[in-house]
């Protein structure tokens, strides 16, 4: 009697399982027949999808790199070097700023720059043209000493002709006594 129950149980378990597998393979067979795709085609589609994802990834990387470069260039051009009245000496702050500039120029190795030398409105025209030249040259020499290739840097003096601040106060004059960097 007990043996018969076990056989029955087994048959009860096996039968549906058997039925299911045959049903599954039937399903797969049905699917396959409907899409008409082979294993190779599926692999090809998948490869293309991966390639597209990679392309998007590279574009995004490029965009981020360009953004970063633009931001670095903006920062490079926005930070000026300042000088004391009638002086072309680089103080500690100026030297720090120039070190940052050197960093940028090392990382953006194909970039050429113009270094502009400027003066405040006090002082006379010709003297200020010469002083502006000395200021730009001082900044260039510092960078050259730090290893930046001198041929990448051109200097130009604007004397007192291009003030940033048109005011006639000490404050305005301070802002105008500067060397300014422009990426070519």
């Amino acid at each position, binding site marked *: 009697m007990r043996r018969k129950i076990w056989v029955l149980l087994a048959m009860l378990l096996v039968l549906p399982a058997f039925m299911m597998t045959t049903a599954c393979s039937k399903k797969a067979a049905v699917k396959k027949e409907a899409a008409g795709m082979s294993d190779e085609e599926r692999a090809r589609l998948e490869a293309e999808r991966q390639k597209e994802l990679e392309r998007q990834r590279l574009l995004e990387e490029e965009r981020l790199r360009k953004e970063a470069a633009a931001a670095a260039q903006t920062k490079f051009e926005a930070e000026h070097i300042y000088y004391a009245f*009638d002086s072309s000496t680089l103080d500690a702050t100026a030297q720090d700023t120039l070190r940052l500039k050197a960093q940028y120029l090392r990382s953006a190795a194909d970039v050429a720059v113009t270094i502009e030398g400027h003066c405040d409105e*006090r*002082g*006379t*025209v*010709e*003297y200020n*043209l*010469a*002083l502006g*030249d*000395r200021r730009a*040259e001082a900044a260039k020499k510092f960078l050259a000493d730090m290893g930046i290739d001198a041929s990448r840097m051109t*200097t*130009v*003096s*604007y*004397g007192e*002709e291009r003030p940033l601040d048109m005011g006639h106060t000490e404050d305005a004059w301070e802002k105008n006594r500067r060397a300014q960097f422009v990426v070519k």
Partner: protein
Amino acid sequence: MPTKSVISGVLLASVLFLAATAGFAANYNIVDVTNPFARKIPIAIPHFKPMEGGQAESIASRKSSEMLESALMFTGYFKMLDRGAYLADPETMPIDSPGINFRNWTGIGAELLITGGLREQSGQLEMELRLFDTFKEQVIIGKRYSGSVEDQRRMVHKFCAEILFWLTGSRGFFDSRITYISTEESGNKEVYVCDFDGENTRKITSLRSICLSPAWSPDGGSIAFTSYKSGKPDLYIYSLSDNHSTVVAEKGLNISPAWFPTGNQLAATLSFSGDPEIYLLTGSGKIIKQLTKDPGIDVSPTFSPDGRKMAFVSKRQGSPQVYIKNLDSGSVDRLTFNGKNNTQPEWSPKGDKILYTAIEDNQINIFVIGADGQGLAQLTSGSGDNEGGSWSPDGSMIVFSSSRDGNEKIYVMTAFGTDQRRLFSKPGKQSEPAWSGNRE
């Protein structure tokens, strides 16, 4: 020969001035009053007489007399007696001595009298002008000029040159011009030229850029200046007759031109070597030789009239000062010891004095000093920023820029700092004037 009363006045004043300045080695005074311009010679210039009648003649007569008055007053030597006080009628009075009643003139205080008679026919003008010593009742100068009506300004100025020569031994500056920089609304700075009195303005450049520091060649045929047309300061040597420029565009600065008194050469500051130095160039921009050899700023050359010395600005001892280089021996001596910032020197065509711009406590003013370092005098004070002085060709006057009325404008004054007034009215800012030689 000038009459005693006049010449003694001028000589006495000159002697007094020399005596007064001898003791001023260490300090300076503002506007030396013992100078030839302090006591002005009273002169009467009645309206000229139209000799035949006719409207053109009348108009020319009045205009010429006014031009003459204007030109003589410009010099600072004379004081014009008001025509309303004249006792004689210019329309009827004789223009030559046998008929003139000199007591009409000495009576109102005139020491000098000028009469003029004009004849005009179909646009052609004949002008007779005479200068009289009213006390001696004698004619000093008598001239007749003819030409077209358009030449009347030139005729009048020729007569003024005769008067100045009689008075001072120099023909004055009536045939000279002034060049200057005018800042336009766009921000561009262009080169302009006008006659010595501000008349007949002409625009020289249309570079739509920044032009700076114009300088006349000795013959008045060229103007050298710096322009940023190419994006950097290049030196332009512009010929007025050809309307053409030769450009000196070395690396770095090409600035601060100043012509040598003879030949066709000029000095300029070039920084292609890495350091601003003064070089001598040909009139076509070729480097002849290097005139300064000193690390640091060397700028603003100006030559003595005999060409043997050059004054310039150097920072070699720590602050911008004026130095003089002896071009024969090569030795360089410092000229200015007063103040910490002395620039823009200009050597007087008379050779004896050098003017310059001094900045002290944010005040910018024009000073003059003897070429020997003696006689320092401050010419401007308490009236805005005053800079960029340039001598008249006879060394009697100085043109400069002043911001005393707000914007920078062109002003003139005598060599002693008296009679300071604006030269002309023009919108915008004008600066950096340079006075040409006298073509007469």
